[in-house]
């Protein structure tokens, strides 16, 4: 078959159909509960403001080339090349008090198989206050020794699984395992994509602590062609000495998305490392106290951060498409800002929660 008149309309028809699809819903102001805890809604006022911002940016950055707007470097690796931008941010945190975490865990008899809260209380009453005490117990000694061995082994992943398996995955002691790491071990990770799965990741934000500052590296795709290089650059951050991942909703979004895109290019998944998803710990900490548990709401309420000219994450695809279509890099400005702020807030939120429970006093 050659290009017949039938064929000519296929691309247009699919474009119409696909551009008519929306992956987020509009929610009228003050009606946040109607949307449930879904990531996929945008307040109509936010939407209007973002559309206006887009128009402003397009005229403001008209005719300016990429390099005059963004100051960064080319990241080159076996996947090709992408753009990398680095920034430094203040970060205040107390060193972790590992002892507090160890005490908490050692007093938690229910980590031993077969011991629930009721049995735990009975054992306490009979003088078994710690796991060490329990090593003398005729029945539980075996399991207790096993638990202690696993804890003193110092493998965060294993301890997280141990605690998470006996309690819930968002139990405070699960977060507490982070105290076994140095601040420099953490990789704060957030991505911006062209949609909910099955499309490119256009921006990878990675934060790490260097000299008591938060250093944020962002890998941006100037064209979709640069995705593979950005993926490989990102993965290299996850394979450090003793790394641990910190995300906000990364267990259901950022990490599976990353794995999915790696598989898309026929690349293997990154090695499993400890992963602290702050969405779950925040939920446990502030549920009922705060009306919204989105990152932007938390940073406002808990960290007193106010964003200016921010765009809702769900509208990133629209902004990136505007850049792709026009070549005008104005729409990229708020995407980079948004992602950078997400990483910064994520890091601060993490240290805030850690400080509350395991900070040195």
């Amino acid at each position, binding site marked *: *078959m050659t290009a017949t008149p039938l064929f000519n309309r296929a691309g247009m028809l699919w474009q119409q159909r696909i551009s008519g*699809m929306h992956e987020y819903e509009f929610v009228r102001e003050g009606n946040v509960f109607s949307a449930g805890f879904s990531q996929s809604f945008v307040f109509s006022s936010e939407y209007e403001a973002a559309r206006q911002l887009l128009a402003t940016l397009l005229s403001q950055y008209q005719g300016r080339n990429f390099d005059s707007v963004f100051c960064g470097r080319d990241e080159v690796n076996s996947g090709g090349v992408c753009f990398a931008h680095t920034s430094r941010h203040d970060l205040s945190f107390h060193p972790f008090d590992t002892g507090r975490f160890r005490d908490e865990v050692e007093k938690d008899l229910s980590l031993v198989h077969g011991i629930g809260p009721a049995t735990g209380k009975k054992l306490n009453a009979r003088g078994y206050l710690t796991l060490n005490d329990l090593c003398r117990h005729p029945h539980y000694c075996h399991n207790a020794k096993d638990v202690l061995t696993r804890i003193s082994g110092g493998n965060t992943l294993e301890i997280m699984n141990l605690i998470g398996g006996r309690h819930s995955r968002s139990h405070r002691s699960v977060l507490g395992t982070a105290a076994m790491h140095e601040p420099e071990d953490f990789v704060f990770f957030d991505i911006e994509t062209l949609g909910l799965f099955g499309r490119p990741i256009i921006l990878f934000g990675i934060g790490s602590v260097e000299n008591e500052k938060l250093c944020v590296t962002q890998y941006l795709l100037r064209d979709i062609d640069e995705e593979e290089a950005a993926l490989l650059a990102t993965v290299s951050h996850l394979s450090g000495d003793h790394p641990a991942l910190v995300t906000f909703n990364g267990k259901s979004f950022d990490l599976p998305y990353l794995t999915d895109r790696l598989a898309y290019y026929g690349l293997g998944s990154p090695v499993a490392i400890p992963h602290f998803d702050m969405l779950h710990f925040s939920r446990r900490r502030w549920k009922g106290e705060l009306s919204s548990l989105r990152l932007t709401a938390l940073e406002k309420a808990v960290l007193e951060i106010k964003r200016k000219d921010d765009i809702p994450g769900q509208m990133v695809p629209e902004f990136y498409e505007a850049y792709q279509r026009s070549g005008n890099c104005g729409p990229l400005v708020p995407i980079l800002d948004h992602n950078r702020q997400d990483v910064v807030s994520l890091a601060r939120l993490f240290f805030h929660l850690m400080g509350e429970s395991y900070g040195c006093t």
Partner: protein
Amino acid sequence: MAVPDLLRLLDSVPSYRERVTHIETTEPVTARYGRLDCSLSPALEGYLTQSGIRLYSHQCEAINASRAGRNVILTTPTASGKTLAFNLPVFTALECDSDARALYLYPTKALANDQLLPLDELSRFTGISARSAIYDGDTPQSKRAAIREKSRIILSNPHELHQVLSWHAKWRYFLSGLEFIVIDEAHRYRGVFGSNIAFVIRRLLRLCRHYGSEPRFILSTATLANPQEFARCLTGQVFVSVEEDGSPHGRKHFVLYNPFFNGICEKSAHHETKDLLVSCVKEDLQTLCFTGSRKMAELLTLWAREDARLSSARAADSISVYRAGFLPEERRTIEQQLKDGSLKGVVSTNALELGIDVGSLDAVILSGYPGTMMSTRQQAGRAGRKGDEAIAILVAQANPLDQYFMHHPDRFFSRSHEHAIIDLKNPYILAGHILCAAAELPVDEGADRQYFGDTLDEYLHDFQSHDLLRKTSRGWVYSGRGRTAEAVRLDGMPQETFRVLCQGKLLETMDRGQAYREAHEGAIMLHQGETYIVNEMDPATHNIRVTGTSVDYSTQPLKEVELAILETLETKEVNGMRCSFGDVEVTEHFTGYKIKRGDTIIGIEPLSLPPLTFRTRAFWFIPPADIKKSLDTAGLDLAGGLHGAEHAIIALMPLHVLCDRWDIGGMSSPAFGADGEPVVFVYDGHEGGIGLAEKAYAILSPLLISAYEMVRDCPCDDGCPSCIHSPKCGNDNQPLDKGATTRILGRISGEIPACSHEQVPAGTGVVPS
């Protein structure tokens, strides 16, 4: 033995005798067993011995071919042991290779559920671990990961497969070990749906290649005219076809019964069906009766019970309806009552031909031709228990296909003429799946051509210009807005969706074409057996508001069709007539609608809808110039003759090409285009075409002959619903001229030679006006 009694009754009662147009008797056949080229493993051999199973010839043929590495399509009848024919090669593979996996695809969730138990049994008995599991929309999230990683046989459906392919990374264990793809009831994957499935399968194979596996196929289908071609289109692979059934069956009688034997029908055809059902029940035959609609199933049951009550209350109570919407317990009760013999007659809708689990019965009555020979065979195949004598009766309705079979029993009982069509060239379907593929793995314009055809390159560039794909050094990457697997619907085209709302509740969705035809303002529409009236249809917002109603009339839209030839792709001569195939643009103007009570028109209302334009594929032919002259001489109307020929050809298309007459459209004109030539067009009713007109063009001669025979043999004088009247005609069946139709069809089918067309052939019933 009660079947001979019933046959005697059909022969002795005059009203039955004159309506029976044909009885085809098939003599009993004993089992033919086969031999395997290399023996099965001791575990599988032990299973067969223990279960007392000796393999039939067709099972052995299929197993041998499959074990030799070939792809196999099995077209033997239902209940011939097809399941075992694919389970044995699959289990052989599972036993030999601990990494081997198999995927079983079923068209419905219910069919997949039925297969789980036999697979578990086979696994338990042989000790070959299969961990068979169903993976579909009902599978709990918590079980999915374990199934993907541990199950060695996964049963699913194409819709689920379409959705999960984009998550292939999670399926890499399964995909890298995939050795078998089993597709049961594959004939269901035809037309628009089948063409979509064909690309879902290609996408699956593309991922298998990525993960290093090369699965073999085993397909089972109902009888088709083109099993190998069909299997190749569906999967892109070459197949061995196994058609010779080795399973035994008893004596079978197939009765063709025509209430319209004399052109009129004294009672309604449904009442005749009821009479036959009651006679069967009185003869103590367990009988299954298939009807076209749920409402008719209910009515027939009611009438039959009233009638039977006249002779015995027990007989009346032994008749029941079996329809969709029954609770599982209600169904099981009926199935149980059939097994213990307390139930004698069950009336069911065609839709249940597969879902019904009642085993085999003594008699089957088909109230009207179910639309395809495939369905006919599947329904009639319900008659006949192990080796016992059985009977099937087709009660003809007043429509062209039913009547054609009544006049041509040889066609009914001959080899299948039905071609199952899959169109790999529909640009919309193909394009949609290229996008899906690009969201799964980067598309390589060279290596992926084997899945998406030689024009892949053009599509990729076209998509780039529409911002849907980006060319990268790794291939073409999807970068559009929506999720592709969500945008691509397997049962439709990428069209706008209209929502039918009743008091704010969504009843159903339809595309624009269907909305204009069935849900225009004032239309009476049916939804799951309930009647609704359309209060408002908004072509801009795509909302259709309806309310429930119980009016006694129906509506039918009136439309005018404009057609323009975009490009002629092929031209040939058939019986001295120029025929062409190509791309056309069809514009339908819906001008109004008729309000009908029964067949009486009680009013016509105007409609103002924007015209509906779509591009599709058509064949057309220009009857030789001398026809017009001869019709003029005979005082016959050319326009009415062409229009009648168009209707007759469309009516007989389903005999040759598996489709519904509603999938096809037509247009005829005594003076078309710049040259003012007479012409008849037949086009696919789907945007982009779906291969129906293309296939019909390829087999035009037999199609024209059957259309001619159908019109010639109809005893009516001026055309009737059994020949050239069309229930979907947008011009209210005007103009029609049966005499002219017969001459045109006779001439172009080559049945009446050019020189003798002055003579009216005998038996046409034509009265020259």
